[in-house]
Protein backbone atom coordinates (compact mmCIF):
# COMPACT_ATOMS: atom_id res chain seq x y z
CA UNK A 1 0.00 0.00 0.00
CA UNK A 2 1.35 3.35 -0.96
CA UNK A 3 1.16 6.36 1.28
CA UNK A 4 0.02 9.75 0.02
CA UNK A 5 1.12 12.73 2.01
CA UNK A 6 -0.56 16.08 1.79
CA UNK A 7 1.67 18.73 0.29
CA UNK A 8 0.40 22.28 0.35
CA UNK A 9 0.40 24.16 -2.96
CA UNK A 10 2.75 26.73 -1.45
CA UNK A 11 5.25 24.04 -0.59
CA UNK A 12 4.90 22.40 -4.01
CA UNK A 13 5.61 25.65 -5.86
CA UNK A 14 8.50 26.45 -3.54
CA UNK A 15 10.08 23.04 -4.10
CA UNK A 16 9.73 23.30 -7.84
CA UNK A 17 11.11 26.82 -7.91
CA UNK A 18 14.09 25.78 -5.81
CA UNK A 19 14.74 22.86 -8.09
CA UNK A 20 14.70 25.02 -11.21
CA UNK A 21 16.74 27.81 -9.65
CA UNK A 22 19.44 25.38 -8.60
CA UNK A 23 19.76 24.04 -12.12
CA UNK A 24 19.90 27.52 -13.66
CA UNK A 25 22.39 28.91 -11.13
CA UNK A 26 24.83 26.13 -12.03
CA UNK A 27 25.13 27.44 -15.60
CA UNK A 28 27.15 30.42 -16.73
CA UNK A 29 25.47 33.71 -17.45
CA UNK A 30 24.38 35.58 -20.55
CA UNK A 31 24.11 39.33 -20.93
CA UNK A 32 22.04 41.02 -23.63
CA UNK A 33 22.28 44.77 -24.05
CA UNK A 34 20.93 47.36 -26.43
CA UNK A 35 23.59 49.63 -27.97
CA UNK A 36 23.17 52.69 -30.18
CA UNK A 37 22.46 50.84 -33.43
CA UNK A 38 21.87 47.25 -32.36
CA UNK A 39 21.66 44.57 -29.73
CA UNK A 40 24.66 42.62 -28.44
CA UNK A 41 24.52 39.28 -26.62
CA UNK A 42 27.45 37.89 -24.70
CA UNK A 43 27.61 34.44 -23.17
CA UNK A 44 30.33 32.72 -21.25
CA UNK A 45 30.65 29.48 -23.16
CA UNK A 46 33.61 27.16 -23.35
CA UNK A 47 32.17 25.21 -26.26
CA UNK A 48 32.72 26.63 -29.73
CA UNK A 49 29.94 24.55 -31.27
CA UNK A 50 27.19 24.18 -28.65
CA UNK A 51 25.70 27.63 -28.89
CA UNK A 52 23.70 29.48 -26.31
CA UNK A 53 22.85 32.35 -28.65
CA UNK A 54 20.96 31.75 -31.90
CA UNK A 55 19.14 33.46 -34.72
CA UNK A 56 15.37 33.00 -34.65
CA UNK A 57 14.32 35.34 -37.45
CA UNK A 58 15.41 38.34 -39.49
CA UNK A 59 15.45 40.66 -36.48
CA UNK A 60 14.95 38.25 -33.56
CA UNK A 61 17.58 36.53 -31.45
CA UNK A 62 17.34 33.87 -28.75
CA UNK A 63 19.66 33.08 -25.85
CA UNK A 64 19.23 30.42 -23.20
CA UNK A 65 20.92 29.28 -20.01
CA UNK A 66 20.40 26.15 -17.96
CA UNK A 67 20.03 22.67 -19.36
CA UNK A 68 21.27 22.65 -22.93
CA UNK A 69 18.78 20.08 -24.27
CA UNK A 70 15.87 22.00 -22.76
CA UNK A 71 16.69 25.47 -24.08
CA UNK A 72 17.77 24.03 -27.42
CA UNK A 73 14.30 22.56 -27.87
CA UNK A 74 12.82 25.94 -27.06
CA UNK A 75 15.16 27.52 -29.63
CA UNK A 76 14.04 25.04 -32.32
CA UNK A 77 10.40 25.59 -31.46
CA UNK A 78 10.95 29.35 -31.76
CA UNK A 79 12.50 29.02 -35.22
CA UNK A 80 9.62 26.80 -36.34
CA UNK A 81 7.07 29.22 -34.96
CA UNK A 82 8.75 32.24 -36.58
CA UNK A 83 9.29 30.59 -39.97
CA UNK A 84 5.74 29.30 -40.18
CA UNK A 85 4.25 32.63 -39.09
CA UNK A 86 6.33 34.46 -41.69
CA UNK A 87 5.40 31.94 -44.36
CA UNK A 88 1.69 32.14 -43.56
CA UNK A 89 1.46 35.93 -43.30
CA UNK A 90 4.49 38.07 -44.08
CA UNK A 91 7.99 38.47 -42.73
CA UNK A 92 6.95 41.73 -41.06
CA UNK A 93 4.26 39.93 -39.06
CA UNK A 94 6.77 37.96 -37.00
CA UNK A 95 6.92 39.76 -33.65
CA UNK A 96 9.07 39.05 -30.63
CA UNK A 97 6.30 39.86 -28.13
CA UNK A 98 4.15 37.03 -29.45
CA UNK A 99 7.15 34.71 -29.29
CA UNK A 100 7.98 35.74 -25.73
CA UNK A 101 4.38 35.10 -24.74
CA UNK A 102 4.45 31.62 -26.25
CA UNK A 103 7.63 30.82 -24.38
CA UNK A 104 6.14 32.19 -21.15
CA UNK A 105 3.00 30.08 -21.57
CA UNK A 106 4.98 26.94 -22.27
CA UNK A 107 7.38 27.48 -19.37
CA UNK A 108 4.44 28.29 -17.08
CA UNK A 109 2.63 25.11 -18.11
CA UNK A 110 5.72 23.00 -17.59
CA UNK A 111 6.27 24.59 -14.19
CA UNK A 112 2.80 23.84 -12.84
CA UNK A 113 1.77 20.76 -14.82
CA UNK A 114 4.93 19.20 -16.21
CA UNK A 115 6.74 16.26 -14.60
CA UNK A 116 9.43 18.76 -13.64
CA UNK A 117 9.93 22.45 -14.34
CA UNK A 118 12.33 23.33 -17.14
CA UNK A 119 15.69 24.38 -15.76
CA UNK A 120 16.13 27.24 -18.18
CA UNK A 121 15.96 30.97 -18.41
CA UNK A 122 15.84 32.68 -21.77
CA UNK A 123 16.24 36.02 -23.46
CA UNK A 124 14.48 36.95 -26.69
CA UNK A 125 15.26 40.25 -28.34
CA UNK A 126 14.13 42.12 -31.40
CA UNK A 127 16.03 44.77 -33.33
CA UNK A 128 13.69 47.64 -34.10
CA UNK A 129 13.10 48.79 -37.64
CA UNK A 130 10.50 50.61 -39.69
CA UNK A 131 7.72 48.30 -38.53
CA UNK A 132 8.53 47.18 -34.98
CA UNK A 133 10.35 48.58 -31.95
CA UNK A 134 13.52 47.29 -30.34
CA UNK A 135 12.51 44.90 -27.55
CA UNK A 136 14.28 42.82 -24.97
CA UNK A 137 12.44 40.16 -22.95
CA UNK A 138 13.61 37.83 -20.24
CA UNK A 139 11.50 34.74 -19.60
CA UNK A 140 12.10 32.80 -16.40
CA UNK A 141 11.67 29.08 -15.67
CA UNK A 142 8.17 29.54 -14.20
CA UNK A 143 6.91 31.66 -17.10
CA UNK A 144 7.48 35.09 -15.63
CA UNK A 145 8.13 37.52 -18.45
CA UNK A 146 10.08 40.73 -17.97
CA UNK A 147 10.29 43.56 -20.46
CA UNK A 148 13.83 44.95 -20.09
CA UNK A 149 14.33 48.50 -21.38
CA UNK A 150 18.11 48.41 -21.76
CA UNK A 151 19.80 45.13 -20.77
CA UNK A 152 19.00 41.68 -19.41
CA UNK A 153 21.00 39.09 -17.51
CA UNK A 154 20.14 35.41 -17.06
CA UNK A 155 21.80 32.44 -15.41
CA UNK A 156 24.57 31.95 -12.88
CA UNK A 157 24.98 34.83 -10.52
CA UNK A 158 22.58 37.07 -12.42
CA UNK A 159 21.91 39.51 -9.58
CA UNK A 160 25.48 40.66 -9.03
CA UNK A 161 26.12 40.83 -12.78
CA UNK A 162 23.03 42.97 -13.15
CA UNK A 163 24.25 45.30 -10.40
CA UNK A 164 27.68 45.64 -11.97
CA UNK A 165 26.16 46.35 -15.37
CA UNK A 166 23.63 48.83 -14.02
CA UNK A 167 26.49 50.87 -12.57
CA UNK A 168 28.12 51.43 -15.97
CA UNK A 169 25.20 51.11 -18.41
CA UNK A 170 23.22 54.15 -17.37
CA UNK A 171 22.83 55.26 -20.95
CA UNK A 172 23.06 53.61 -24.35
CA UNK A 173 26.62 53.39 -25.70
CA UNK A 174 28.26 52.23 -28.93
CA UNK A 175 29.10 48.58 -29.56
CA UNK A 176 32.72 48.46 -28.26
CA UNK A 177 31.78 50.20 -24.99
CA UNK A 178 28.67 48.09 -24.48
CA UNK A 179 30.58 44.90 -25.18
CA UNK A 180 33.39 45.89 -22.79
CA UNK A 181 30.84 46.70 -20.07
CA UNK A 182 29.03 43.42 -20.63
CA UNK A 183 32.21 41.35 -20.47
CA UNK A 184 33.44 43.23 -17.38
CA UNK A 185 30.10 42.64 -15.65
CA UNK A 186 30.15 38.96 -16.61
CA UNK A 187 33.65 38.35 -15.31
CA UNK A 188 33.46 40.50 -12.17
CA UNK A 189 36.39 42.18 -10.40
CA UNK A 190 38.28 39.01 -9.51
CA UNK A 191 38.83 37.31 -12.83
CA UNK A 192 39.09 37.83 -16.57
CA UNK A 193 37.36 35.71 -19.21
CA UNK A 194 39.43 34.61 -22.20
CA UNK A 195 38.05 35.76 -25.55
CA UNK A 196 37.93 32.11 -26.64
CA UNK A 197 35.48 31.43 -23.78
CA UNK A 198 33.08 34.11 -24.99
CA UNK A 199 30.20 33.62 -27.37
CA UNK A 200 29.21 36.95 -28.88
CA UNK A 201 26.50 37.78 -31.40
CA UNK A 202 24.87 41.01 -32.53
CA UNK A 203 21.73 42.16 -34.30
CA UNK A 204 22.55 45.13 -36.50
CA UNK A 205 21.27 46.56 -39.77
CA UNK A 206 23.77 45.99 -42.57
CA UNK A 207 21.49 46.48 -45.54
CA UNK A 208 20.49 42.84 -45.59
CA UNK A 209 17.25 41.21 -44.51
CA UNK A 210 18.85 39.09 -41.81
CA UNK A 211 20.52 41.10 -39.06
CA UNK A 212 22.05 38.34 -36.91
CA UNK A 213 25.83 37.99 -36.94
CA UNK A 214 28.08 35.82 -34.82
CA UNK A 215 31.34 37.55 -33.98
CA UNK A 216 34.53 35.57 -34.35
CA UNK A 217 37.11 35.54 -31.56
CA UNK A 218 39.24 37.92 -33.62
CA UNK A 219 36.36 40.37 -34.10
CA UNK A 220 35.49 40.17 -30.40
CA UNK A 221 39.10 40.74 -29.38
CA UNK A 222 39.33 43.76 -31.67
CA UNK A 223 36.17 45.31 -30.22
CA UNK A 224 37.38 44.65 -26.67
CA UNK A 225 40.77 46.09 -27.51
CA UNK A 226 42.72 43.10 -26.20
Amino acid sequence: MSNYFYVSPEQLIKDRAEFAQKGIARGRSIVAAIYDVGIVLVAENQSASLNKISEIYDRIVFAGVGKYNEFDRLREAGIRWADSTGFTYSREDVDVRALANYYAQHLGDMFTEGPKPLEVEIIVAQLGGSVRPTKLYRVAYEGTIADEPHFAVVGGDADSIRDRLAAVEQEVHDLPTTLRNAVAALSGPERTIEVSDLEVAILEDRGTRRTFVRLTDAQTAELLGV
Partner: protein
Amino acid sequence: MGLPLFSASEDPGPSFVRFAEVSGLLPAAPQVRDAPHATTVVALRYAEGVVMVGDRQATAGYIASRDVRKIEAADHNTGIAISGSAARGMEFIRLAQLSFEHYQKMTDADLTLEGKANYLSPIIQRNNLTSPLVVVPLLAGWDTTRHEGRIFEYDGAGGCYERHDFAAIGSGTPFAESALRLGFRTDLTREDALDLAALAIYEAGDNDPSTGGPDFVRGIFPMMVVLDEAGFTELPTEEVRGRYEAINRRRTEGQGVAGGSLR
Protein backbone atom coordinates in the same frame (compact mmCIF):
# COMPACT_ATOMS: atom_id res chain seq x y z
CA MET B 1 -29.26 3.74 -58.62
CA GLY B 2 -30.56 4.39 -62.09
CA LEU B 3 -29.35 3.60 -65.53
CA PRO B 4 -25.82 4.84 -66.32
CA LEU B 5 -26.75 7.81 -68.47
CA PHE B 6 -24.56 10.88 -68.94
CA SER B 7 -24.85 14.41 -70.19
CA ALA B 8 -23.15 15.02 -73.50
CA SER B 9 -20.07 16.69 -72.00
CA GLU B 10 -19.50 13.93 -69.45
CA ASP B 11 -20.34 10.98 -71.67
CA PRO B 12 -17.45 8.50 -71.56
CA GLY B 13 -18.30 7.17 -75.02
CA PRO B 14 -17.18 3.66 -75.84
CA SER B 15 -14.21 3.76 -73.45
CA PHE B 16 -14.80 1.45 -70.49
CA VAL B 17 -11.89 2.92 -68.54
CA ARG B 18 -13.30 6.42 -68.89
CA PHE B 19 -16.74 5.10 -67.88
CA ALA B 20 -15.21 3.39 -64.86
CA GLU B 21 -13.59 6.66 -63.83
CA VAL B 22 -16.75 8.67 -64.26
CA SER B 23 -18.88 6.16 -62.36
CA GLY B 24 -16.36 5.87 -59.55
CA LEU B 25 -15.23 2.31 -60.27
CA LEU B 26 -11.71 3.59 -60.90
CA PRO B 27 -10.08 6.67 -59.37
CA ALA B 28 -10.18 9.47 -61.91
CA ALA B 29 -6.91 10.47 -63.50
CA PRO B 30 -6.07 14.09 -62.75
CA GLN B 31 -7.26 16.41 -65.49
CA VAL B 32 -3.98 17.59 -66.94
CA ARG B 33 -4.78 20.82 -68.64
CA ASP B 34 -2.27 22.21 -71.05
CA ALA B 35 -0.30 24.03 -68.37
CA PRO B 36 1.33 27.10 -69.85
CA HIS B 37 5.11 27.04 -69.73
CA ALA B 38 5.29 30.69 -70.36
CA THR B 39 8.96 31.09 -69.75
CA THR B 40 12.46 30.72 -70.95
CA VAL B 41 15.29 30.63 -68.46
CA VAL B 42 18.78 29.39 -69.21
CA ALA B 43 21.73 28.58 -66.99
CA LEU B 44 25.22 28.29 -68.39
CA ARG B 45 28.48 27.26 -66.75
CA TYR B 46 31.73 29.05 -67.29
CA ALA B 47 35.15 28.67 -65.76
CA GLU B 48 34.45 30.57 -62.51
CA GLY B 49 30.73 30.21 -62.05
CA VAL B 50 27.28 30.08 -63.60
CA VAL B 51 25.17 32.69 -65.34
CA MET B 52 21.37 32.60 -65.40
CA VAL B 53 19.23 34.63 -67.77
CA GLY B 54 15.44 34.62 -67.85
CA ASP B 55 12.70 36.43 -69.71
CA ARG B 56 10.08 38.49 -67.86
CA GLN B 57 6.78 37.62 -69.51
CA ALA B 58 3.82 35.83 -67.92
CA THR B 59 1.32 34.41 -70.38
CA ALA B 60 -2.24 33.26 -69.77
CA GLY B 61 -3.57 33.17 -73.31
CA TYR B 62 -2.55 36.80 -73.49
CA ILE B 63 0.34 38.70 -71.89
CA ALA B 64 -0.59 38.74 -68.23
CA SER B 65 2.52 40.53 -67.02
CA ARG B 66 5.67 41.93 -68.57
CA ASP B 67 7.95 42.24 -65.57
CA VAL B 68 7.81 38.93 -63.72
CA ARG B 69 10.94 37.86 -61.85
CA LYS B 70 11.46 34.20 -62.67
CA ILE B 71 14.91 33.96 -61.11
CA GLU B 72 15.35 34.54 -57.40
CA ALA B 73 18.16 34.03 -54.94
CA ALA B 74 17.28 30.97 -52.89
CA ASP B 75 20.07 31.99 -50.55
CA HIS B 76 23.42 33.75 -50.79
CA ASN B 77 24.98 31.18 -53.16
CA THR B 78 22.00 29.70 -54.97
CA GLY B 79 19.61 30.85 -57.67
CA ILE B 80 16.26 29.26 -58.49
CA ALA B 81 14.36 29.79 -61.73
CA ILE B 82 10.82 28.61 -62.40
CA SER B 83 8.72 27.65 -65.36
CA GLY B 84 5.14 26.40 -65.48
CA SER B 85 2.38 27.59 -63.19
CA ALA B 86 3.20 31.06 -61.88
CA ALA B 87 1.22 30.55 -58.68
CA ARG B 88 2.90 27.27 -57.81
CA GLY B 89 6.25 28.55 -59.00
CA MET B 90 6.18 31.55 -56.66
CA GLU B 91 5.12 29.32 -53.79
CA PHE B 92 7.90 26.91 -54.70
CA ILE B 93 10.52 29.67 -54.56
CA ARG B 94 9.19 30.85 -51.19
CA LEU B 95 9.27 27.31 -49.87
CA ALA B 96 12.80 26.70 -51.13
CA GLN B 97 14.12 29.97 -49.71
CA LEU B 98 12.52 29.27 -46.37
CA SER B 99 13.65 25.64 -46.30
CA PHE B 100 17.30 26.51 -46.80
CA GLU B 101 17.17 29.29 -44.21
CA HIS B 102 15.25 27.07 -41.79
CA TYR B 103 17.85 24.34 -42.10
CA GLN B 104 20.64 26.82 -41.53
CA LYS B 105 19.05 28.31 -38.44
CA MET B 106 18.10 24.97 -36.93
CA THR B 107 21.51 23.36 -37.42
CA ASP B 108 23.80 26.40 -37.55
CA ALA B 109 25.26 24.96 -40.77
CA ASP B 110 24.67 25.52 -44.48
CA LEU B 111 23.19 22.83 -46.69
CA THR B 112 25.54 21.74 -49.46
CA LEU B 113 24.50 22.67 -52.99
CA GLU B 114 23.76 19.04 -53.76
CA GLY B 115 21.74 18.81 -50.55
CA LYS B 116 19.63 21.75 -51.68
CA ALA B 117 19.14 20.23 -55.13
CA ASN B 118 18.03 16.89 -53.70
CA TYR B 119 15.77 18.52 -51.12
CA LEU B 120 13.70 20.11 -53.90
CA SER B 121 13.02 16.81 -55.72
CA PRO B 122 10.18 15.50 -53.53
CA ILE B 123 8.60 18.97 -53.39
CA ILE B 124 8.42 19.05 -57.19
CA GLN B 125 7.24 15.45 -57.29
CA ARG B 126 4.48 16.07 -54.76
CA ASN B 127 3.26 19.13 -56.62
CA ASN B 128 3.45 17.78 -60.14
CA LEU B 129 1.99 14.36 -59.51
CA THR B 130 -0.99 15.67 -57.58
CA SER B 131 -1.86 18.81 -59.50
CA PRO B 132 -2.25 19.90 -63.10
CA LEU B 133 -0.44 23.11 -62.15
CA VAL B 134 3.00 21.86 -62.98
CA VAL B 135 6.23 23.54 -61.91
CA VAL B 136 9.61 22.80 -63.47
CA PRO B 137 12.42 24.69 -61.75
CA LEU B 138 16.11 25.11 -62.43
CA LEU B 139 18.72 25.36 -59.69
CA ALA B 140 22.14 26.87 -60.15
CA GLY B 141 24.69 27.88 -57.60
CA TRP B 142 28.22 28.28 -56.42
CA ASP B 143 29.43 25.13 -54.67
CA THR B 144 31.43 26.41 -51.70
CA THR B 145 33.16 23.07 -51.08
CA ARG B 146 34.11 22.29 -54.69
CA HIS B 147 34.68 25.92 -55.66
CA GLU B 148 32.79 25.72 -58.92
CA GLY B 149 29.46 26.69 -60.38
CA ARG B 150 26.94 23.87 -60.78
CA ILE B 151 23.57 23.47 -62.50
CA PHE B 152 20.75 21.09 -61.56
CA GLU B 153 17.72 20.59 -63.76
CA TYR B 154 14.53 18.69 -62.97
CA ASP B 155 12.01 16.73 -64.94
CA GLY B 156 8.28 17.04 -64.32
CA ALA B 157 8.28 14.14 -61.86
CA GLY B 158 10.96 15.69 -59.67
CA GLY B 159 13.95 13.82 -61.05
CA CYS B 160 17.10 15.85 -60.46
CA TYR B 161 19.94 15.83 -62.97
CA GLU B 162 23.19 17.70 -62.83
CA ARG B 163 24.19 19.45 -66.05
CA HIS B 164 27.84 20.14 -66.71
CA ASP B 165 27.34 22.57 -69.56
CA PHE B 166 24.00 24.38 -69.69
CA ALA B 167 20.28 23.91 -69.16
CA ALA B 168 17.08 25.61 -70.27
CA ILE B 169 13.51 25.49 -69.00
CA GLY B 170 10.18 26.72 -70.33
CA SER B 171 8.39 26.99 -73.63
CA GLY B 172 11.27 28.69 -75.45
CA THR B 173 13.69 25.87 -74.61
CA PRO B 174 14.17 24.55 -78.18
CA PHE B 175 15.26 27.97 -79.46
CA ALA B 176 17.36 28.91 -76.46
CA GLU B 177 18.99 25.53 -76.28
CA SER B 178 19.89 25.61 -79.97
CA ALA B 179 21.80 28.83 -79.46
CA LEU B 180 23.51 27.42 -76.37
CA ARG B 181 24.44 24.17 -78.13
CA LEU B 182 26.08 26.04 -80.97
CA GLY B 183 27.87 28.60 -78.83
CA PHE B 184 28.97 26.58 -75.80
CA ARG B 185 32.66 26.03 -75.16
CA THR B 186 34.31 24.65 -72.04
CA ASP B 187 36.60 27.67 -71.75
CA LEU B 188 33.95 30.41 -71.70
CA THR B 189 34.77 33.53 -69.71
CA ARG B 190 32.16 35.36 -67.63
CA GLU B 191 31.64 37.88 -70.45
CA ASP B 192 31.32 35.12 -73.09
CA ALA B 193 28.82 33.27 -70.93
CA LEU B 194 26.71 36.39 -70.35
CA ASP B 195 26.74 37.21 -74.08
CA LEU B 196 25.74 33.69 -75.10
CA ALA B 197 23.01 33.36 -72.46
CA ALA B 198 21.60 36.78 -73.41
CA LEU B 199 21.55 35.72 -77.06
CA ALA B 200 19.80 32.46 -76.18
CA ILE B 201 16.97 34.37 -74.49
CA TYR B 202 16.86 36.80 -77.43
CA GLU B 203 16.38 33.82 -79.77
CA ALA B 204 13.65 32.38 -77.55
CA GLY B 205 11.88 35.73 -77.35
CA ASP B 206 12.13 36.06 -81.13
CA ASN B 207 10.55 32.65 -81.84
CA ASP B 208 8.40 31.61 -78.91
CA PRO B 209 5.14 33.57 -78.48
CA SER B 210 5.13 32.94 -74.74
CA THR B 211 8.62 34.27 -74.11
CA GLY B 212 9.27 37.98 -73.88
CA GLY B 213 12.31 39.50 -75.55
CA PRO B 214 13.94 42.79 -74.61
CA ASP B 215 11.27 45.49 -74.30
CA PHE B 216 12.95 48.73 -75.39
CA VAL B 217 9.66 50.62 -75.30
CA ARG B 218 9.03 49.96 -71.60
CA GLY B 219 12.66 49.51 -70.61
CA ILE B 220 12.05 45.96 -69.36
CA PHE B 221 14.84 43.49 -70.05
CA PRO B 222 15.53 39.85 -69.24
CA MET B 223 17.00 39.19 -65.80
CA MET B 224 20.70 38.44 -65.84
CA VAL B 225 22.31 36.83 -62.82
CA VAL B 226 25.85 35.70 -62.06
CA LEU B 227 26.64 33.09 -59.40
CA ASP B 228 30.29 32.91 -58.52
CA GLU B 229 32.59 33.05 -55.51
CA ALA B 230 30.91 36.32 -54.47
CA GLY B 231 27.48 34.67 -54.45
CA PHE B 232 24.29 35.72 -56.23
CA THR B 233 24.62 38.98 -58.19
CA GLU B 234 21.91 40.43 -60.41
CA LEU B 235 23.25 42.66 -63.17
CA PRO B 236 21.93 46.23 -63.12
CA THR B 237 19.29 47.07 -65.74
CA GLU B 238 21.60 49.49 -67.56
CA GLU B 239 24.19 46.78 -68.16
CA VAL B 240 21.51 44.39 -69.42
CA ARG B 241 20.10 47.10 -71.68
CA GLY B 242 23.55 47.62 -73.18
CA ARG B 243 23.92 43.95 -74.03
CA TYR B 244 20.51 43.74 -75.68
CA GLU B 245 21.04 46.98 -77.58
CA ALA B 246 24.19 45.45 -79.04
CA ILE B 247 22.39 42.27 -80.11
CA ASN B 248 19.50 44.30 -81.52
CA ARG B 249 21.87 46.53 -83.49
CA ARG B 250 23.62 43.57 -85.06
CA ARG B 251 20.31 41.94 -85.95
CA THR B 252 18.99 45.16 -87.42
CA GLU B 253 22.13 45.55 -89.55
CA GLY B 254 21.69 41.96 -90.74
CA GLN B 255 18.03 42.68 -91.53
CA GLY B 256 16.88 40.09 -89.02
CA VAL B 257 19.29 37.41 -90.11
CA ALA B 258 21.88 36.08 -87.69
CA GLY B 259 24.11 35.47 -90.70
CA GLY B 260 25.77 32.20 -89.85
CA SER B 261 27.35 33.37 -86.64
CA LEU B 262 26.26 33.61 -83.04
CA ARG B 263 25.54 37.35 -82.92
